[in-house]
């Protein structure tokens, strides 16, 4: 009896397990899609444009959200005309689809403080922001600017009547104060940003800019030498060039004294003055009650089970019909740690927008109806989906000789069957290619993606043989001098539930097939960081991304101790030769070209040398890519409108922020 029951239960379990496996019969009706490897549309750099707006703002009649109107009624808030800048200075935010309506809460899960930058980018209001296609910057908080012929003097115009979120006027004073009392005095734990320096083309000397107030709504930024790309670099390095003077002057130690500052720190729950400065001056958007210009303000603790960002009544933008933005009442962030949980909540329909990995595409598509959402794709600025780099500045001399040999890199590139690899790693949603600037971005070169991308084991073996790395008795290659050669590839995990190491396992297989003994070492992000800083990474799986060499080159030009592939050359540059190692050859050229860009007096020089840097990368292929850049899979709830279906999603453009959440709305 017992035996029978046990057997029965086990069988029942097994049967129920297999009963769910009859999925292969469902989609038999799918016609036409036979053996072609279908790739997801690589929306390379295409953007959806916003609707063109020609509005004479002076004729606008402003309106506001019902909750705010109520508060105006009870006297809690001044009328909308007084809260926003004067009519001619109001900024009209163009919409992607249609004029929206007020209401709703945007549900977006996050991990608390760890994801503070995600929310920062969603709500950011820079002085000048990047245009949709990244071809330059456009006024945002600022109304406009003028620049003199040799780009040494910039006049920045602000909006009259614009206010901070606590109702105090936003004026030139806030910009001048920020620069002189906070940036220059390093009160928030950062040295002055690169964008504030101009470089002397002859001596290479860097000098800081002079920022002065011309009148309440005009600021003058004066450089000693030309700074052609000042506004773009500002949009990358600092984004905002202002801070609420009336708030900050009450807690900066050099203004109120240390004792008072310490008192303020304790009041606000910070351990010391430095932390106070850092949070109120840099991470200010997560400090409650710190005035900002953003569309939504944090009203709860970041670690609360649900964090809420509420509408800013003094927000300075309106839509073309005069409705004060944002449409949406609040952003509601449920604290969820694991990405599996986020997916589950998303397919259950409890999330309004989120970006996912390529491999989640199928699961999302299958549950569109259940969760009532649509799936769209945004492109990124990655040079590849998966890539490997060999440390060009590795300390071991013998390894360095091998890595810096271009034949080695070519061999390791052609030793891999990209078609098979892409099929497995991207589930056939991507394809194989070389690491290169993606289509749609500046510096794109036709054909670069095919460099060394054939599967040619013979050639790989020939190259390695030529290098003198003969195969030993165990089938693995040795150094020229006969000693054992081993390649340690580091995989740095971002979080433990991410990537399962398939790419690395496959790479190992291909490398070993041509005789290169490979070990994959997985390290957590802390240890990984430590290794990068101490130049301990021999080789790494790493994907570079950048949209403009001149503005944010540190992924591909060694200017600081940031990426493992250029050893300690970056450290050498950032410490002006005090630490790190001096580079030679083409890598030294990279730094040299970057210097020229920094001190350029006109844009043509900038473009020329940017191209030269990219060309060096094409020539040397220091970064060996294997699969095509992965699009970002975006889930959007069906009732959420004005979300662009095509967007360039990258850090420089502030991720979600580029899609202008302030004009999202809930409709039907």
């Amino acid at each position, binding site marked *: 009896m*017992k*035996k029978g029951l*046990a057997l029965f239960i*086990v069988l029942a*379990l*097994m049967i129920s*397990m*297999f009963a*769910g*496996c*009859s*999925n*292969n019969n*469902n*989609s*038999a009706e*799918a016609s*036409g*899609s*036979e*053996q072609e490897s*279908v790739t*997801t549309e690589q929306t390379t750099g295409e953007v959806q444009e916003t609707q063109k707006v020609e509005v004479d703002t002076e004729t606008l009649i402003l309106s506001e959200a019902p909750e705010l109107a109520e508060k105006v009624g009870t006297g809690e808030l001044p009328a909308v005309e007084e809260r926003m800048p004067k009519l001619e200075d109001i900024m009209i935010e163009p919409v992607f689809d249609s004029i929206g309506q007020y209401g709703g809460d945007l549900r977006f899960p996050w991990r608390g403080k760890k994801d503070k930058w995600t929310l920062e980018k969603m709500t950011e209001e820079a002085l000048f922001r990047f245009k949709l296609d990244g071809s330059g910057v456009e006024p945002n908080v600022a109304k406009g600017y003028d620049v003199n012929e040799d780009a040494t003097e910039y006049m920045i115009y602000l909006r009259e009547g614009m206010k901070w979120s606590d109702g105090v006027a936003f004026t030139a004073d806030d910009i001048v104060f920020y620069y002189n009392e906070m940036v220059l005095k390093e009160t928030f734990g950062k040295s002055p940003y690169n964008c504030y320096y101009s470089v002397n083309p002859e001596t290479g000397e860097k000098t800081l800019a002079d920022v002065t107030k011309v009148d309440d709504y005009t600021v003058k930024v004066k450089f000693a030498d030309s700074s052609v790309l000042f506004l773009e670099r500002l949009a990358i390095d600092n984004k905002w060039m202002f801070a609420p003077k009336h708030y900050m002057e009450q807690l900066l130690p050099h203004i109120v004294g240390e004792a008072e500052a310490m008192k303020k720190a304790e009041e606000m729950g910070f351990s010391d003055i430095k932390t106070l400065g850092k949070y109120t001056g840099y991470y200010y958007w997560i400090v409650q009650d710190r005035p900002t210009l953003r569309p939504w303000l944090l009203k709860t603790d970041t670690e609360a089970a649900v964090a809420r960002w509420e509408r800013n009544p003094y927000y300075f933008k309106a839509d073309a019909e005069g409705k004060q933005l944002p449409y949406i009442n609040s952003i509601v962030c449920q604290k969820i740690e694991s990405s*599996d949980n986020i*997916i*589950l909540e998303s*397919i259950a329909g409890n999330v309004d927008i989120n970006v996912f990995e390529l*491999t*989640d*595409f*199928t*699961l999302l*598509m*299958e*549950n569109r109806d259940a969760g009532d959402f649509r799936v769209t794709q945004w492109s990124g600025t990655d040079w590849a989906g998966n890539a490997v780099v060999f440390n060009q500045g590795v300390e071991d001399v013998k390894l360095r000789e091998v890595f810096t040999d271009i034949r080695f890199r070519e061999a390791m590139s052609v030793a891999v069957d990209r078609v*098979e690899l892409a*099929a*497995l790693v991207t*589930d*056939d*949603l991507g394809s194989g290619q070389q690491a290169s600037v993606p289509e749609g971005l500046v510096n794109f070169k036709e054909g670069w993606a095919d460099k060394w991308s054939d599967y040619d084991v013979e050639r790989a073996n020939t190259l390695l043989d030529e290098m003198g790395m003969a195969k030993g008795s165990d089938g693995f290659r040795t150094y020229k001098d006969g000693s054992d050669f*081993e390649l*340690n590839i580091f995989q740095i995990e971002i979080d*433990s*539930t991410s990537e*399962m*190491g*398939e790419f*690395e*396992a*496959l790479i*190992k*297989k291909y490398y070993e097939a041509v005789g290169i003994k490979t*070990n*994959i*070492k*997985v*390290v*957590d992000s802390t*240890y990984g960081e430590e290794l990068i800083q101490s130049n301990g990474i021999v080789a790494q799986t790493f994907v570079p991304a950048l949209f403009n060499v001149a503005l944010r080159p540190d992924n591909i030009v060694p200017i600081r101790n940031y990426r493992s592939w250029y050893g300690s050359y970056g450290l050498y540059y950032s410490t002006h030769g005090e630490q790190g190692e001096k580079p030679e050859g083409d890598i030294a050229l990279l730094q040299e070209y970057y210097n020229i860009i920094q001190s350029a007096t006109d844009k043509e020089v900038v473009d020329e040398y940017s191209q030269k840097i990219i060309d060096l990368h094409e020539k040397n292929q220091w970064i060996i890519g294997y699969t095509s850049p992965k699009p970002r899979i975006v889930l959007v709830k069906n009732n959420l409108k004005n979300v662009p279906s095509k967007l360039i999603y990258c850090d420089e453009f502030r991720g979600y922020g580029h899609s202008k959440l302030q004009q999202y709305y809930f409709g039907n």
Partner: protein
Amino acid sequence: MGLLKTKKIDNDEKYFFASQWSLMFKKLKKHKLAQISIVILIILYTQMLFAQFVSPYGLESFDSKVVNAPPTKVHLFDDEGIHLPFVYAYEQKRDPETFRKFYVEDKSKRYPIKLFGKGETYKFLGLFESDRHLFIVDEPAKIFIFGSDKLGRDIFSRIALGSQISLTIPLAGVFISFILGITIGSISGYFGGMVDTVIQRIIEVIRSFPTLPLWMALSAAIPARIPVIQMFLFITIILSFISWTGLARTVRSKFMSLKTEDYILAAKVAGVSDFKIILTHMIPGFISYLVVNMTLSIPGMIIGETSMSFLGLGIRPPATSWGVLLQEAQQIQNIALYPWKLVPLLYVIITVLAFNFFGDGLRDAADPYK
């Protein structure tokens, strides 16, 4: 006549003279559930030893043409009548909207299942090479009895090969904790007094040792050269040093209760050495509890291994263990779309159950009063 009588030892006398262990063995044979469990465990461990032979494919048999494939259907009949069991090759298709891959059988050709057929080469028990597998089919057909994973690897093969880690390491770990636990626990319980106090305090300090940082530290400190499996073995052994404390405490409490028994006092008076007393008189007194405890620990370690993999601290790919398989299976994507990846869970459950029923049987068998 007298000679014959003394020579004839009848069953009753056998019973009275039988050692403790043969008594247990006899009773164990009667316990049906334990019997089944023993059989199951023998099957699992044999499968583990001969894993490369039993599995049709290897750990690195990636194949993009059969990713996420459901279990292969085995057929006996087709239009032409009955045949020896065979399978069809798969044709991979893709839903144009969701890009979900699905498989259609290509009924044009039959691929009979071959026993002892030729497949990929492997090293049999690390000794000599062979390419024979228990069952296999010719390429391009595949025989995935539990389906394939997202790199096209056979899940059944991964389970069998993974059991080499998942079934041995817990044994090693538990064995070590067991020895340590009993030794120290009995010393502590038997001698009492100062010895006991000191040992108990040490146990407390060790007990509050944070295992998580220890794991993280160890996994970071170990160089890339050691195969992941060895690393895990090291770590497990080290951790078993910490888990013996629970056993030690219970042994001690049992000891403290038994210490006052008359027969112990008698042995002492008779001049039997302490060590012998512990070994032959006290330990057998509560061995049934220890047995239950030990068999309950093994499954605990099996589950521990899976939990550690979940946290990303244990065995990591490319090594394969049941914990790794479960970690892959638990992704929502797999639960929703490819539920056959949960089969390793069945293996874990069955193994755990088998150990528990076996322990149960042992416990009943060891019970001297039945």
